């Protein structure tokens, strides 16, 4: 099911008949396929399709009920994962700068010195997400968009080969969205693997060359243009297949349905 176009690069992540869920009940089943290094894969599907569960399954926050996930030599701690609802205590008295610096945890651990090189890297990351000048602000004083920028700054510092993003652009302003999409593009150009759950099909078409359409199982997986067809979207939604003449209308409807979810 994996596209041949990027078949040349080595694998980053392989699912083998993998099912994930909670309390023994599967939320998504029978996922089979490989994500190549440097690939930017969008997870698309209606609400409850299992996009978040699949991402949680990769990092072990959702239980793997069957099959296997192969990270090809990487460990979960090498990945960067940005959940849709982070367990962050926004009232904790920590500054934006200090919070972003936690992205260095994997490299510095509890004791290693936080040196001038790290400091430079940190201020560069904050500048890249547009938070230069906000270093000393407490995270509780940041807006939703600024907090998301800060989380991207931390992800930048994690310097991870595989980045998992769960609906990273929900409930943020258009400018923040554009800036952060730019960072996703940059990750792609740097050869990092990005897997993102998204509901905005326009975004998917613009930034993600490959897509995986989900509806509690894989509906289609491949080049974005071949995956996001009206027929596939209708199947994911559980609606009857549109006839040829109604295809455009069907796609519009599917877009609207996905966009509102």
């Amino acid at each position: 099911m994996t596209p041949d176009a990027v078949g040349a690069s080595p694998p980053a992540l392989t699912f083998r008949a993998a099912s994930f869920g909670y309390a023994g009940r599967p939320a998504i089943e029978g996922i089979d396929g490989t994500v190549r290094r440097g690939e930017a894969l969008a997870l698309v599907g209606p609400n409850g399709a299992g996009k978040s569960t699949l991402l949680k399954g990769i990092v072990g926050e959702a239980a793997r009920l069957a099959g296997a996930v192969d990270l090809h030599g990487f460990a979960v701690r090498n990945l960067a994962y940005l959940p849709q609802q982070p367990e962050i205590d926004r009232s904790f008295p920590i500054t934006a700068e200090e919070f972003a610096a936690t992205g260095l945890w994997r490299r510095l651990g509890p004791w290693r010195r936080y040196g001038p090189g790290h400091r430079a890297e940190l201020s560069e990351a904050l500048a890249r997400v547009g938070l230069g000048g906000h270093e000393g602000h407490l995270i509780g004083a940041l807006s939703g968009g600024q907090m998301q920028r800060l989380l991207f700054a931390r992800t930048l510092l994690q310097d991870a080969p595989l980045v998992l993003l769960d609906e990273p652009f929900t409930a943020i302003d258009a400018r923040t969205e554009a800036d952060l999409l730019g960072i996703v593009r940059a990750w792609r150009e740097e050869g990092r693997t990005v897997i993102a759950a998204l509901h905005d099909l326009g975004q998917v078409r613009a930034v993600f060359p490959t897509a995986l359409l989900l509806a509690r199982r894989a509906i289609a997986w491949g080049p974005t243009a071949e995956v996001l067809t009206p027929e596939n979207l209708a199947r994911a939604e559980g609606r009857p297949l549109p006839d040829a003449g109604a295809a455009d209308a069907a796609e519009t409807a599917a877009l609207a349905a996905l966009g509102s979810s």
Partner: protein
Amino acid sequence: MIDLLLGPFVEFSFMRRALAGCFALSLSAPPIGVFLTLRRMSLMSDAMSHAILPGAAVGFLVSGLSLPAMTFGGLAAGLAVALLSGAVTRSTALKEDASLAAFYLVSIALGVMLVSLKGSNVDLLHILFGTVLALDDPALLLIGGISAVTLLWLAIAYRPLVVECVDPLFLRLSGRASAVTHLSFLGIVVLNLVGGFQALGTLLAVGIMLLPAVIARFWATTLPGLLPISVLASLVSSYAGLLLSYHAELPSGPAIVLTAGALYLLSILVGRNGGLVWRMRRPSHAAA
């Protein structure tokens, strides 16, 4: 004047011992209290301190007012309740605060019952409210040791502790540090409560841990401010409380905790960060 402020400590060794014990506690317990309040675990520490009572009481039953026996009993019981209440919360529908309240009510009743089986009301008062004016060498060494271990632990675990507080999921996915940090934090809390129990008794041990921490919240916004201010508040309360208890012939433990209480009231009124006076002056900031 100097005689009034220093006289009791120059003249009486039991006052010096009390001051040394309280100062040692003041270095370690308030920073732990800061993290407890930030993690909204104040009630947890309360429950754990009460849980120490039946453990100490069993030690008392077995070997009288013996420090090692009561310390060991208290340590074991405190750790047991910390782990049990976590397990009850995870495996039942009960919210953590409810399960903690249940644990600590049972603990107090059981502890008082156990002490009364063998001891007098005076023994009970000693266990509940401590004997800060009768700290002997082993007790002082224990408190000093606990204080040193706590400061060392804070130095080692500071980074993961902060990350664990602010974004537990992030730390959980970054390796084993999360579980190690959480469990060792609970252990350190119990250790400090056991240390505080020597001086202030099981009921008031939390006082020197939590009151300085909430006082600090009125004067600082970030950890580099909160931690030293909490220590300072605790040092001042210990010193002023002991002095007050000496001159006014009041019981020492309650005097120390009441002094901290007075500082707390003062902070509510004039604290730079959210004190009532400032809120009334700048009504537009009242909601912030």
